[in-house]
């Protein structure tokens, strides 16, 4: 299995800072904006963004967790079922500007389920998508991110693996892995 690092701790920190600055540009003073991290790994990324925003703004932007397991379109089509995670949205979504946050954007199907799941909590005024790694040219659905950390050209036979320190990794790292050599 060969793997190549796409981003690691220091560069990643620079990317997170840039994305946070971009958000400030469009959302300042964040009166009506909220972050919504997608379970499981989008939540780690979203809390990094929230930390960085707090450094810049001096206050915390509301952060929720969204689990889309029950909304997926590949139910009964996967070989192994996915275990559900907690959904925790401690604020109403009605009329909010929601920044949906995930680590990797690939086919767009998870984001599609997230839009469905979100609507069950209320009608946001606007939904934006913030992505750390955009695997370009691989979309199954017409879904595109609003903010992107890094564009990566990948093959279907490859996989992007994100490791966060919060999960027990030694340091943050994002890998591009060739599957067939595994």
């Amino acid at each position, binding site marked *: 299995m060969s793997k190549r690092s796409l981003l690691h701790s220091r560069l990643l920190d620079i990317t997170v800072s840039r994305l946070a600055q971009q958000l400030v540009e469009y959302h300042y003073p964040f009166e009506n904006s909220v972050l919504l991290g997608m379970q*499981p790994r989008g939540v780690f990324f979203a809390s990094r963004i929230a930390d960085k925003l707090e450094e810049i703004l001096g206050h915390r932007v509301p952060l929720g967790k969204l*689990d889309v*397991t*029950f*909304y*997926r379109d590949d*139910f*009964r*089509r*996967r*070989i*192994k*079922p*996915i*275990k*559900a*995670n*907690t*959904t925790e949205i401690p604020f109403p979504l009605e009329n909010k500007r929601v920044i949906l946050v995930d680590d990797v954007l690939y086919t767009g199907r998870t984001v599609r389920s997230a839009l*469905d799941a979100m609507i*069950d*909590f209320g009608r946001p005024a606007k939904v934006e998508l913030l992505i750390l790694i955009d695997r370009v040219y691989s979309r199954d659905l017409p879904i595109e991110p609003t903010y992107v950390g890094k564009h990566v050209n990948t093959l279907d036979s490859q996989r992007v693996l994100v490791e966060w320190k919060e999960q027990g990794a030694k340091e943050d790292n994002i890998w591009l892995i060739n599957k067939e050599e595994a």
Partner: protein
Amino acid sequence: MSQALSVPHLLGIKSLTESDIQLIFETADEFKSVINRPIKKVPSLRDITIANIFFENSTRTKLSFELAEKRLSADVVNFSSGNSSVKKGETLLDTVNNILSMKVDMVVMRHSSPGAPHFLSRYIDANIVNAGDGTHEHPTQALLDTFSIREKLGDVSGKKVAILGDILHSRVALSNIFALQKLGAEVMVCGPNTLIPKYLGNLGVKITSNIREALHWCDVANVLRIQLERQHIKFFPSLREYSMHFGLNKQLLAELDKPITILHPGPINRGVEITSDVADSDHAIILDQVENGVAVRMAVLYLLASIRQN
């Protein structure tokens, strides 16, 4: 993070592993938060049709299953034997095969014969959920009972649970014994000697016919109803006498040195196995059990349906 049940059907707690039960609990936690939202529905089972086949009467279980199915967006068809071809002499297998020909993916069945769902599972492809088979098992009830204990006391492991009442005719008792033991709890049963099965001791449960002893020993008391409809001979002289010796009342609870949690699978016969002041007290979690029943059944249906069909 992918995990699946080790079985394609929920026939009984006996065939589940401890990690199956934990997976059901963890999934039910998420469904419990779903059913407390303004929109209490998720689209997971939208391409699945479920037949609820009840050959025996049921109100709460049937309602609970139907709600669980609808909150998962499944299509639901109902069948009760009262007004059916069963009365005209059709066999169980024929009845179910007829229903399955109409493209049903899952069957929730209650039947008066122990083992009826096990028999069916050998002949049909659909996932089967046992909603009670005679005096044998009632797995979803045991799951929701243990889920409610876990919710109230934090954990099931290490707890002492007394099951009081008509053990002989109770499928709830047997399923609860299996579930509690798999989760690491100790079990004692208490009832008139005539209503305790002869070989129950082989399951490793404590047996007593002294309700005071059971109550002093336990952290949780699960009170069962006297199933007069299944008693074709006299097992005790009268309901009044049963109530005097085995009924749970406030005086008995006041004698204890600690509060205990009270469960009852319903329907309650107030003044027989439990008095109103106990059933309505803060230590009784009878209505929590009903609420948890929907979440637990959603978890069971969801997890069974998620096993891939080719």
